[in-house]
């Protein structure tokens, strides 16, 4: 057992490392750059041959925008990469580029030509067909409870255009990024202007998973209704400020005292979304459920925690909104913006709700 034990302190160290980040970093919940916030598949666990539609939530939070942000999709869907590693897809892309292959699972655009700009599909949605042999083509992995297949789809939120980046042949780094985002002058843009994202979609013959349901948004004990988007029921929107019922509103924070302007808020996810995870058990052999958590983002104001746990795999609901809600603090100036709550489960399920907000001037006579 001596030779096994190093794993334990390493785990503890990993936890300690992730829990003790120093202050002074930019707040990840405040969207001030080009960001991808989420992606959701209508079928998180697809069947072979299914058509899967991905929707992406991206936002351009830059104050100056020389070029608008677009979401590009790499049309070559990566199938069952080595060791299920996303970066192993780059080898597939390179091989496809060399072969001039436009294929891939449902790819509907031409393969990227090496050495320059290339045309990519754009938009917030992308559809592909899960290969019929997705499960059978996946190398057998001992210890896998149920055979599965894996497709990985890459997208790029870029405030410019996408271009292939030549890779130094001596660079053995498997993560070497083969694409970049460039402005009209040909300058490669930095992290504030582009994001290379990817979504994994697992294929099972029989196992399915549903995206979490968001019933409403709790705001200091009051229910803010949300509505699913037609055709994409995992995407919810709270009332817009221009709607008859009005949006989430609050006065600007005139106090410098911490806590004076705090508002508790968070999504309500019903117990029915806490699905049994039939393929996994706990240490005592009992079936586990999903873990569900929510990530927060905002274009104005500030949220306290970047993520809150809603459902534990063993003990279930962490509590009602009074226990799971995050703390939001309005900015000190009036304005409008959005608050996003992205609800994930640990089986690829993702839903989100966009909450438009209006912050009134401090001391305003009427704040809707």
């Amino acid at each position, binding site marked *: 057992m001596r030779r096994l034990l190093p794993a334990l302190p390493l785990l503890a160290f990993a936890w300690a490392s992730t829990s*003790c980040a120093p202050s002074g970093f930019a707040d*990840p919940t405040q969207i001030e750059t080009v960001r991808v916030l989420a992606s959701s598949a209508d079928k998180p666990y697809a069947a072979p041959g299914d058509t899967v539609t991905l929707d992406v939530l991206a936002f351009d939070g830059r104050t100056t925008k020389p070029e608008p942000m677009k979401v590009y999709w790499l049309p070559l869907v990566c199938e069952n990469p080595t060791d299920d590693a996303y970066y192993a897809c780059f080898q597939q892309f390179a091989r496809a580029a060399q072969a001039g292959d436009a294929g891939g699972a449902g790819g509907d655009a031409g393969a990227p030509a090496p050495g320059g700009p290339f045309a990519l599909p754009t938009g917030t949605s992308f559809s592909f067909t899960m290969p019929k042999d997705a499960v059978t083509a996946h190398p057998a992995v001992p210890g896998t409870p149920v055979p599965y297949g894996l497709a990985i789809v890459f997208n790029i939120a870029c405030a410019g255009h996408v271009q292939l980046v030549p890779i130094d042949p001596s660079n053995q780094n498997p993560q070497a990024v083969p694409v970049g985002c460039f402005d009209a002058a040909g300058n490669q843009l930095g992290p504030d202007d582009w994001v290379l994202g990817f979504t994994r979609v697992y294929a099972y013959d029989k196992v399915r998973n549903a995206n979490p349901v968001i019933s409403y948004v709790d705001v200091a004990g009051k229910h803010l209704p949300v509505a699913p988007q037609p055709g994409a029921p995992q995407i919810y929107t709270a009332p817009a400020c221009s709607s008859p019922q009005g949006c989430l509103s609050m006065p600007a924070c005139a106090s410098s005292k911490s806590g004076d302007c705090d508002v508790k808020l968070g999504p309500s996810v019903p117990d029915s979304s806490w699905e049994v*995870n039939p393929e*996994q058990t706990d240490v005592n052999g009992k079936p586990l459920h999903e873990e569900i958590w929510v990530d927060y983002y905002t274009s104005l104001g500030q949220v306290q925690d970047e993520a809150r746990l809603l459902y534990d*795999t063993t003990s279930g609901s*962490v509590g009602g909104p009074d226990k799971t809600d995050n703390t939001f603090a309005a900015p000190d100036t009036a304005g409008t913006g959005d608050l996003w709550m*992205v609800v994930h489960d640990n089986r690829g399920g993702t839903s989100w709700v966009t909450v438009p907000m209006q912050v009134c001037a401090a001391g305003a006579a009427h704040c809707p």
Partner: protein
Amino acid sequence: MRAPRPSLAVVAGVVALAAVARPASAQLPQAAPPVAAPQAPVVTMPVVKRNDGAVYPKQALDAGFHDAVEVPLVLTIDATGVVARATVEAPVGRGFDEAAVAAAQRLLFEPATRDGKPVAAKIRFVYRFTPPAAVLAGRVVTLAGDRPIAGATIIVRDASGWTHTATTGADGAWRIEGLPAGAYHVTLAAAGKAPHEADETVQPGEEESAVDRLAPVAAPAAPAAKKEEEVEEVQIRGEKPPREVTKRTLEQRELARIPGTNGDALRSLQNLPGVARPPAFLGLLIVRGSAPQDTQYFVDGTPVPLVYHFGGLSSVVPTEMISKLDFYPGNFSTQYGRAMGGIVDVGLADPKGDRIHAMAQADFIDSRVLVQGPVGDTGWRFSVGARRSNLDLWLSPVLQATNAGVTVTPVYYDYQAVLERDLDKHQSVRFAFFGSDDKLDVFLPTADASEPDLAGTIGSHTGFWRIQGLYRNRVSDTTELRAVAAVGQDYLEFQAGDLFFKLSDTPVTSRIELAQKIERNLTMNVGVDMMYAPYTVSAQLPALPKPGQPPAGPFSQAPPLQANTSGAMYEPAFYGELEATPWAGGRIVSGLRVDYTKDTAAWDVSPRFVARQDVTRDPRTTIKGGAGLFTQPPSPQETNPVFGMTGLTSNRATHYDVGVEREITTQIDASIEGFYKKLDNLVEAGLGNTGTGQVYGAEVLLRYKPDERFFGWLAYTLSHSERQTEPGAPVRLFQYDETHILTVLGSYRLGRGWEFGMRYRLSSGWMYTPDTYGFYDENIGTYLPLASYPAYGSRLPLFHALDVRIDKTWQFHWCARCETPGKLSLYLDVLNVYNQGNVDGYSYDYNNTHAAPANDLPIIPSFGIRMEY
């Protein structure tokens, strides 16, 4: 135990005129006065300028001849004073003639003169050979526990009644030099111990060395048994000599007082040469550039899986229960196997037998108690100790008071019980029960966006226990039997999110070793080292990335793998060693170990060789070296069909060492060693036995051994450790590589119960892998870094820190009739006194575009109180 040492020549010579023979004088060569004939020119005879002496010939010693011998020579000395010719006037044989001529040819003279002018001359010169002196030396320790006995008196009496005396130092060692060859009667006496007498015979130029184990004075016995008890005398003589190139032993006083360790025995190991500074909160021992799991730990010869409690805060055996700590950084004896790095062997202290003793201690980290003493008049002695952490008592309230939102309850225990008895003057038996238990439960309501599985319920539970029997029998003057057997349980569980690991095994281990003295200079050790461990494993974990490859994403992103297996590890081993002392000051140990591993269904054969040679005696200087093969079976998870792979064989390392040790004074030792380790056949996850590597470096230790006032040392290690995961892959520095490691420490007793100690550490930073802006994982909602390649390609800044410890002890009487005073001690152990912000690593912002140093421990004072009776 004989240890021949180089013969020292005692030279007697006489210079005489050819015409006027003079009787040989006592010790030093002398020039005879000139003889002047009447009216003749003024003549002066040659005068000795340099005489290096002659060595008593080995041929004579080997033949058992050790009488005093004179060899008359006729020397022809030229006009420059050089011996042009030396002839033996009356040969005596046995190598004396050759030795005399060889010595004479190195003589230098002031030349003879005639009327002031140098001229050639012929003289008669006599060498007197007296046999080299012998040495009696040894260590006096307690029976069974091998705890050094300081202040013991040794009286050595020769046949004529002439006596020599010595007193043991803090390490129990004594030594009497300059003894004529012959028979001696040795008497050893120590307070509270049964005295012992023995007869020893020493040969010229040799050193007779022994370890004497003294039993406690027998407790008052029942009248019927008293007569027998009075004559009982327990002692085992003739412990085997060191079998390793390097064996470092820390003593009780050092273990308890090294600043910055909180008096923890095993943490003190991290201050020795060859041991790298481990990352904070990780109880790791990184020995000569090896992986932490390559070093094996024993308690009195029984392997144990853990040495540190959670976070490396303290050892699983408290210092009070330890009599000594032996550390072998490499090239260890064939009695140890299944490890490629180093060996740590903890010796449990034997219980005191004079009366009941008790000790209690508490600090912020933990509380402990120890009780020991005789079991009535039965002859048995016992000790019982236990310890519990105090972290939960103050950490949980602090977290609640600060609204940290985290519930954490770390608790650890350890416990020890020892029962021992000396069966007769040759045999002793001891039973021990010891174990450790660590439990940590955390509830994190705030998910970490980068690793959602590390939220909610996170728990771990690790521990082990052993029941151990130890039997030692000095069957005869030439045969000793030692057997240790143990049975116990190991368990390891952790759970985070939907991931868990649960292991339980029941190891049965035994080691039986027979030491047989075949001849005066030859001892054979043979042994059997068995390990059988049925186990069950349940696990649900993500697949691990291949070595050197970045992870495929957070734990949560992929379906975990499941394994439910049971089986048995069976690893028998057989070993043998020949220890030869073929000449004065020399020792050669050659051995062979054969291991079988059921998991790999393969045998490993490990030949090993060690040699030591004393090159000077006073002060002693020893050159040493060794080479050997060391194998380590793949770990269970590596051979697991789910998390590992089949078809693996053992990891392999070849160790080479050369070095010099020198006793500068009786208290100060110095040593310098160079080492090289060639690693091959290393198991690499997902690849097989494809890994290779090498480690090389040097170690320096300048040590002041504990005396009544002071102990301390300076340790410096220069090291380079590199690995290659498979042919063609980049060669990279090992993640625990530290080029420079310097530790200077000392502790001084000021008097009136005050003791003050300091430790200064300076070492290279660890290796780390810089991250940069990379990718966005949309399933989890987190950025993944673009890690530099190869991994661990950059080094953190230099580490340095000063630690201070202050102890104050009061003695007092518990009661009016109590003869022995009790002790009350307070101590303050301050870590990182000048609050140096050493960098442990770097933390990155959410998208890995900005990094900030994550610092090591800040200044941390630790207060403690201790009571002893």
